[in-house]
């Protein structure tokens, strides 16, 4: 049967090509002149020689078109479009063409990459660097860094450089960052007789005030959620947990990871996670306006800096405070946070990597700090470099809502962590989520869950290294 299928496709291919040749002169009625011209350019771009030939023919200098794919939509897309326009107007030799890829951007990227027609540069925020680097889908940026930005690494916050580094080489350059803190509701603190200016700084303090904060009615229905832990990789940073060693081997069963998960379990035993989930679902989704914290019925929430805008817009009367993640007294790590960012990559088969690098460097704000300090506030982002944070424009942005400064200062903390940059990164992340869920639903003990996770990840690594 397989043979039949193949012959069928070969036949189909022949017919398609014949048809294509036959109708290329007239074009499909759908096409119109505009589209034919476009198809023509794609054709020309296929080989490097053809490109130079095309450049020579066009005659108007060496304007190079850099195809830029990103995943932003709505207001962010408009912001990106305006940034690209700024770049184009200041770089006469390069024309960046931005394309907003909605939905499954990875499917489009990998298909285009496999088909030999990838973009020149792409902004990602998913955990794809190590696996794409391992597959050879994206190129190392070291050659450009060496000649063009030798101090790029020290220019950045240390953690920012780590995100893009795989096997000692930089594959991605982040240009905007996110950190996370614990929001708490001061109004509820006041209501139950706690000092709103004395938020819990340790997990012990946090545990001790829970009975006052939760509200459960006579029928057992939750009316207000105090604190409910979730997001294992976020909280393990405060416990000093570690998910991989220096050589990239997974360390899921690390004792501090276990402590974090045991702490999670202590809450799941006290408060029914299913009821909380139902309660949260009833009020939330990931829509900005329906973040449960905004309703005042959830006293704590771990979230990022962009939420400050939501609070300002949707709950202007809610009094809130912000603290770094509470940590276990004694062994814990203060000022901890899991950190991620939006970063740019250059596909291995990019046609204009040099110009793409030029764009990346500019967007990151290297040698362009004053501009970046003006741009980052528009997205509510944290700078990748302290040199940008220092700029007066960014300082003014932080002063506008003073707690912003706390989010930004976290970037310099030595206790911030990223997801380990190993090829099974995304798999590891997903399975850790499932392990957490199994513990919260009482299906596994924390020890069991982490041991299983370790085995799963080791198996996955063995599988991918065999290939």
């Amino acid at each position, binding site marked *: *049967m397989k043979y*039949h*299928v193949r012959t*069928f*496709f070969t036949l*189909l*291919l022949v*017919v*398609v*090509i014949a*048809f*294509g040749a036959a109708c290329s002169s007239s074009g*499909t*009625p*759908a*096409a119109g002149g505009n*589209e*034919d011209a*476009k*198809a*023509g350019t*794609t*054709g020309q771009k*296929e080989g490097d020689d053809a490109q130079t030939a095309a450049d020579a023919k066009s005659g108007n200098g060496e304007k190079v078109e850099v*195809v830029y794919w990103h*995943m*932003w*939509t*709505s*207001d*962010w*897309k408009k912001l990106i479009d305006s940034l690209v326009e700024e770049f184009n107007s200041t770089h006469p030799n390069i024309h960046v063409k931005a*394309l*907003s*890829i*909605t*939905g*499954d951007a990875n*499917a*489009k990227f990998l*298909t*285009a990459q*496999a*088909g*030999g*027609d990838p973009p020149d540069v792409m902004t990602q*925020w998913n955990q794809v660097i190590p696996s794409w680097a391992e597959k050879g889908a994206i190129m190392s940026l070291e050659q450009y860094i060496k000649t063009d930005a030798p101090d790029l690494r020290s220019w950045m916050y240390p953690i920012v450089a780590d995100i893009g580094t795989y096997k000692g080489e930089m594959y991605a350059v982040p240009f905007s960052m996110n950190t996370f803190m614990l929001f708490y509701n001061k109004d509820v603190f006041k209501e139950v007789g706690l000092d709103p200016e004395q938020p819990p700084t340790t997990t012990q303090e946090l545990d001790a005030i829970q009975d006052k904060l939760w509200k459960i009615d006579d029928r057992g229905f939750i009316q207000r959620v105090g604190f409910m832990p979730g997001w294992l990789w976020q909280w393990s940073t405060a416990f000093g947990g570690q998910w991989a060693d220096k050589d990239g081997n997974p360390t899921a069963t690390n004792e501090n990871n276990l402590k974090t998960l045991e702490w999670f379990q202590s809450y799941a035993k006290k408060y029914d996670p299913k009821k909380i989930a139902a309660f949260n679902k*009833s*009020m*939330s*989704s*990931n*829509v*900005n*306006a*329906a973040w449960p914290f905004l309703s005042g019925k959830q006293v704590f929430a771990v979230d990022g800096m*962009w939420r400050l805008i939501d609070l300002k817009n*949707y709950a202007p009367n809610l009094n809130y405070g912000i603290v770094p993640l509470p940590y276990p007294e004694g062994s814990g790590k203060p000022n901890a946070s899991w950190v991620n960012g939006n970063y740019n990559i250059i596909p291995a088969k990019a046609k204009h990597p040099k110009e793409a690098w030029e764009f990346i460097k500019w967007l990151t704000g290297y040698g362009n700090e004053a501009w970046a300090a003006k741009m980052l506030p528009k997205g509510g982002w944290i700078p990748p470099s302290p040199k940008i944070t220092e700029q007066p424009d960014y300082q003014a942005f932080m002063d506008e809502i003073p707690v912003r400064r706390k989010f930004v200062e976290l970037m310099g903390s030595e206790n911030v962590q990223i997801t380990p940059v190993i090829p099974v990164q995304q798999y590891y992340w997903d399975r850790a989520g499932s392990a957490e869920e199994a513990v919260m639903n009482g299906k596994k003990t924390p020890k069991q869950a982490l041991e299983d996770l370790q085995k799963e990840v080791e198996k996955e690594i063995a599988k991918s290294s065999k290939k």
Partner: protein
Amino acid sequence: MTSKAGLSRRQKEWIREGISHICLLGLGVTFLFPFIWMLSTALKPEAQIFKWPPEWIPEQFIWSNFPEALTFVPFDLYIKNTLLICFWTIVGTTISSAIVAYGFSRIQWPGRNALFLVMLSTMMLPYQVVMIPLFIIFKQIGWVGSFKPLIVPAFFGNAFFIFLLRQFFLTIPHELSDAARIDGCSEFRIFWQVIVPLAKPALATVALFTFMGSWNDFLGPLIYLNDESMYTISLGLQQFTGQYGTRWGMLMAASTVATLPIIILFFFTQKTFIQGISTTGLKG
């Protein structure tokens, strides 16, 4: 006895009808739920959308979501692009599938059944499997970034619709073809003037399903279109969801507008459509 029995029979009928109507009504409302939610979300203020228990009637009607959503992205352009692709896909699929199905059902030739099986087996291939080879082919002939990869394949038939039409054509008595043949009709004329008019409901079903598939197709346009001015509606709708949240009001307003053509089409073609489904034994 007779009057009593008649009455009870009528009563029984009444009760039976009543029960079936209540069941149908209940089911109908259930199916209507998502649509009503979509419409009500499109009109609600942002803060009311996820209230629990859900409130079906907006506190105030935010009609502005519609003009906002339709100007937020170039919606008219997306509709134009989508209609263009839909039109040619329908023309291509219907004509080519009917011709191939005719060959598979009304003409005897050696290897017919074997080839029919081969064709059916292509139905089992998920799109994801052929996605990359197809992309490479289209890239080689320079079609990536145009509408052609989305339209031209339709002119080479669709395995499922060929199968559907073949089954339908098989039910048409051969005497009709024979009579035409005796009168001197060519094979194509038999197809065009005898079979096609008889198969109208089935062809309408094919056209409608093609329209729906093409209107809702997301992966194809995602992979082949490289210019925002060529985006289709399904890609455009994604513009309302993003990294930090979704603009529900606008998304639902735009979705309502995007669903409208399908609803209108169903409204007017319902009879043909149902007829097509019942005569071909196809279940939607």
